[in-house]
């Protein structure tokens, strides 16, 4: 017994030392890319930006996706987003004034670690704060984004459309997340924890579906995407929804699909998860908005 305990202690020590090496996001990234390279050797790196449609065995879904993109319904939502973006505020300023470079070609750095506020900030947060700073209100600044009744859903879709337009201004730019600050790494670690933690009645972690089972179907009709390139398409339009939605709404519905209790829209954990996922998709071009199954 004593020997076992000592063995355990030795392993514990090794285990305690190991994370110091593993905790490095750069090596995580290398390992993560290597995993998918080994799993799908025929898929080129850039192809992962197309999400599940890049994976072998999803050719049928890919055909559908291509047909959908030829004249896609998210153009309607995008036009709404553009209108919101272009309409000046009461004080004459616009959204473009709140962002560097007028909001163009900067979305590849989102979400980012805000050193002053000591938290992760998403595009949705910056857009909402831009309104607040200029004394403006929109439906989504007051609505409860967690509810799915007609009024609140409409507000959330408005936010998604605006965010989608913001991301579209950076289309094709390659994701690069700044991880130089220790706070960013800490948030990243928190997101990582959420990613690997099993939850819900089905007892799935994010990683179970989107790494181990990527390219397969859940329950027969929900194709599972590869985690690599997860965030490139969001805000996206899903066939099931027929409207643009935010990535946090997808996290919530994803949680429900494994029968777990969803977190709040815009909660810190979701922000951290988004940071983790986006960092692991570093180097992939942004394709948002796009259609997803």
């Amino acid at each position, binding site marked *: 017994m004593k020997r076992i305990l000592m063995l355990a202690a030795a392993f514990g020590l090794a285990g305690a030392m190991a994370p110091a090496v593993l905790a490095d996001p750069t090596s995580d990234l290398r390992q993560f890319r290597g995993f998918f390279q080994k799993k799908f050797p025929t898929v080129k790196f850039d192809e992962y930006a197309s999400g599940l449609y890049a994976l072998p065995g999803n050719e049928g879904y890919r055909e559908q996706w291509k047909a959908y993109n030829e*004249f896609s*319904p998210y153009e*309607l939502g995008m*036009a709404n987003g553009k209108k919101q973006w272009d309409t000046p505020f009461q004080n004459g300023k616009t959204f473009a004034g709140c962002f560097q470079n007028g909001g163009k070609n900067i979305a590849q750095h989102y979400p980012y670690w805000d050193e002053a506020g000591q938290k992760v900030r998403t595009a949705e947060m910056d857009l909402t704060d831009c309104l607040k700073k200029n004394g403006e209100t929109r439906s989504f600044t007051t609505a409860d984004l967690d509810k799915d*009744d*007609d009024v609140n859903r409409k507000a959330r879709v408005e936010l998604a459309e605006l965010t989608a337009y913001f991301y579209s201004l950076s289309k094709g730019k390659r994701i690069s997340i700044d991880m130089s600050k220790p706070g960013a790494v800490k948030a990243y670690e928190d997101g990582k924890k959420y990613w690997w933690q099993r939850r819900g009645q089905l007892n799935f972690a994010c990683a179970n579906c989107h790494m181990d089972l990527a390219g397969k179907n859940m329950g027969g009709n929900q194709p599972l995407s590869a985690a690599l390139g997860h965030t490139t398409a969001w805000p996206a339009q899903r066939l099931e929804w027929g409207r643009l939605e935010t990535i946090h709404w997808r996290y919530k519905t994803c949680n429900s699909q494994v029968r777990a209790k969803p977190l709040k829209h815009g909660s810190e954990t979701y922000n951290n998860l988004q940071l983790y996922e986006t960092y692991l998709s570093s180097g992939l071009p942004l394709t948002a908005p796009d259609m997803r199954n």
Partner: protein
Amino acid sequence: MARQTRIRTRMQDGATEILVLVNHPMETGQRVNPQTKEKIPAHFIQKMTFMLNGKEVAVVDMGVAVSKDPLVGIRVKGAKAGAKVRITWSDNKGESGEAETTVS
């Protein structure tokens, strides 16, 4: 809210395809509002007319079976590049919309 009507043409198998996308709820009148338990009144596009250079080439009689934000397309043979395409639609509540483009 003003409805968007978007139009696009493309060559497909030697014919010109005209595609129209409208953001329209296409309510059937069968759905019930879960909060008030009242039926949501029917609201759907009834007629869509396609015109090529001012000449009617197709009329679509649509009903409640068509999905929300419908994408409607027809194929026309012999349309020349630069020909004017114009579509109009009207629904059961008297709303209407139109869009114009030229064959590319």
